[in-house]
Structure formats: structure tokens, C-alpha cells
């Protein structure tokens, strides 16, 4: 099992290094939901360009990965469900003040109690959602 998990650990270390690099340069938390918000908001200046550049870096990684033929198909969900899920993710991360990167990675690394509560909460509701979808909705399980 461990060799199969090694890419996860290595990728995780890269994510942690990237979050550190971003913080060292800007003093900001590498929370993707917050950066996405920062990118479309009207204020200009460094805050906005930092957000846009970081997000462009993420997209560039996707382009490189697709050229290298990495797998990344979306789950076979109907469009309405995917869009609905997107609205929930956007709304929830805005109200909750962070997502898997902001609370889950950066917040936990700072030993933030807020982020610990947030992370345990979204992990719990996500697991409950997968359980319900997998047992009650035809085709809602893990492919």
C-alpha cells in the first residue's frame, strides 16, 4: 500500500512548499477560495495581481499535466448536479472563510483552532454526502 501512496506524500510536500513560498513572498495564506475572490474583486494593486498570478500558475500546471496525459476526468455526474455542487462549494467556502487549502493545509499548519473545526466539519459533511449519494442515488457512488 505504501508505494501506491508515495505520489500522494510527494505531491503533498510540493503543495506545502508552494504554500510556504507564497507566504514568504506575499505574507498571505495560500487559500485558493480566498485568492479566487481576490482575483475578481475590483481593487487593483498587488493583492489582486498576486491572486491572479497564483491562479494562473494552477491553470498552467493543469495544462502541463494534460500534455503529459495525466488523468483528470470529472465524475460522471449530471450537469445540474455539478453546477449545484459548484455553487455550494463557492458559497460554503466564502461563508466559512476557507477551503481545503486555506483551512485544511495552511490553517492546520498554523495550529489554528478555527481551521481545525472547519476541516473536521467539511470532512464530516463530505463523507456523509458520499455515503448518502452512494447508497440512495443510482450512479451516485465512486466510479
Amino acid at each position, binding site marked *: 500500500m505504501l508505494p501506491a501512496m508515495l*505520489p*500522494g*506524500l*510527494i*505531491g*503533498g510536500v510540493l*503543495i*506545502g*512548499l*508552494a504554500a*510556504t*513560498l*507564497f507566504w514568504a*513572498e*506575499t505574507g*498571505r*495564506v495560500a487559500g*485558493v477560495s*480566498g485568492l*479566487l*475572490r*481576490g482575483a475578481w474583486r475590483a481593487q487593483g494593486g498587488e493583492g489582486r495581481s*498576486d491572486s491572479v*498570478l*497564483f491562479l494562473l*500558475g*494552477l*491553470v*498552467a*500546471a493543469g*495544462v*502541463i499535466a494534460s500534455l503529459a496525459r*495525466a488523468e*483528470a476526468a470529472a465524475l460522471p455526474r449530471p450537469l445540474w*448536479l*455539478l453546477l*449545484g455542487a*459548484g*455553487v*455550494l*462549494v463557492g*458559497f*460554503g*467556502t466564502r461563508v*466559512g*472563510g476557507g477551503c*481545503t*487549502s*486555506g483551512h485544511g493545509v495552511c490553517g*492546520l499548519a*498554523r495550529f*489554528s*483552532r*478555527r481551521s481545525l473545526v*472547519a476541516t473536521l*466539519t*467539511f470532512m464530516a*459533511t463530505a463523507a456523509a454526502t*458520499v*455515503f448518502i449519494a452512494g447508497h440512495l442515488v443510482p450512479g451516485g457512488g465512486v466510479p
Partner: protein
Amino acid sequence: MRRAAVVFGAGLLFGVGLVISGMTDPRNVVGFLDFTGRWNPKLAFVMAGAVGIHAVLLRLLARKRPLGATSRAGGRARIDAKLVVGSAIFGVGWGLSGYCPGPAITALGFGLPAAFGFVAAMIAGARLGDRVLGRGAGDAPDTTCSAEA
């Protein structure tokens, strides 16, 4: 210019980490969340690697530079209903799609139509959140981004 290059590089490195760790493939995410099925523990290794290295490096670097505004106490740094309810709603969307914001934006680079729809819906959801919180576009920039510690 240097700052722009470093910030873009940080985003690129973050995205490469997401791809290598398999987090841009929603099956790995939903597989982790599916405790009653064939449990896929990969996401736990990703989190351990990311949190571990970031925690160590933050503490080493913070000797030279304070953790910044994000480590303030009080204000939004409280555990309140917004934190819990918002996170709970986020988790439902995450469980349904297998996408959280980072992997969804990285998936744009794959040219997946589903990712474009998801990210557009995510932005709409965040704007709805702005309205519910009563913070229009005119307030001060949120320099702490997210997850104020």
C-alpha cells in the same frame, strides 16, 4: 517582476503538487471520503505531507518574519456559526463533485468543460455568499484571504 515570477511559480508548484498527488482526479477524493466502500487513503497522505512541511517551514521562517495578520486573535478569528455552517455546506458540494477550489481551477488547464462549469458556479456561489454576509464589492481588501488563524 521578481514578485510576479515567484507568485506564479508558487501557483505552478501548488498545481503540480495537486496533479502528482492525484487530487485533480475526483475519484481519489471521493474514494477517500467513502469510508464504507473501498477506502482510498491517498488524501490523508497528501494532507500529512503538505501540513507537515508547511508547519515546519513556517516556524523556521517566522523567526525572521512574523506570521502576519493571519495570526491575530479576535475579530474573525473566532469559532462561530458562519465558520461551521459555511464549512458544512462546502463539504456537501465537495462530496457531490469531488472538486474543491484548488483542483477545480487546476482542472481548467485540462480543458475539461465540466471544470469550466464548476468554477463558474463556484464564483456565483461565492458572490451569493458575499451578499448573505452583507459585504459588497466596496469593502476593504481581504488581505488575509481565508483561514485566519
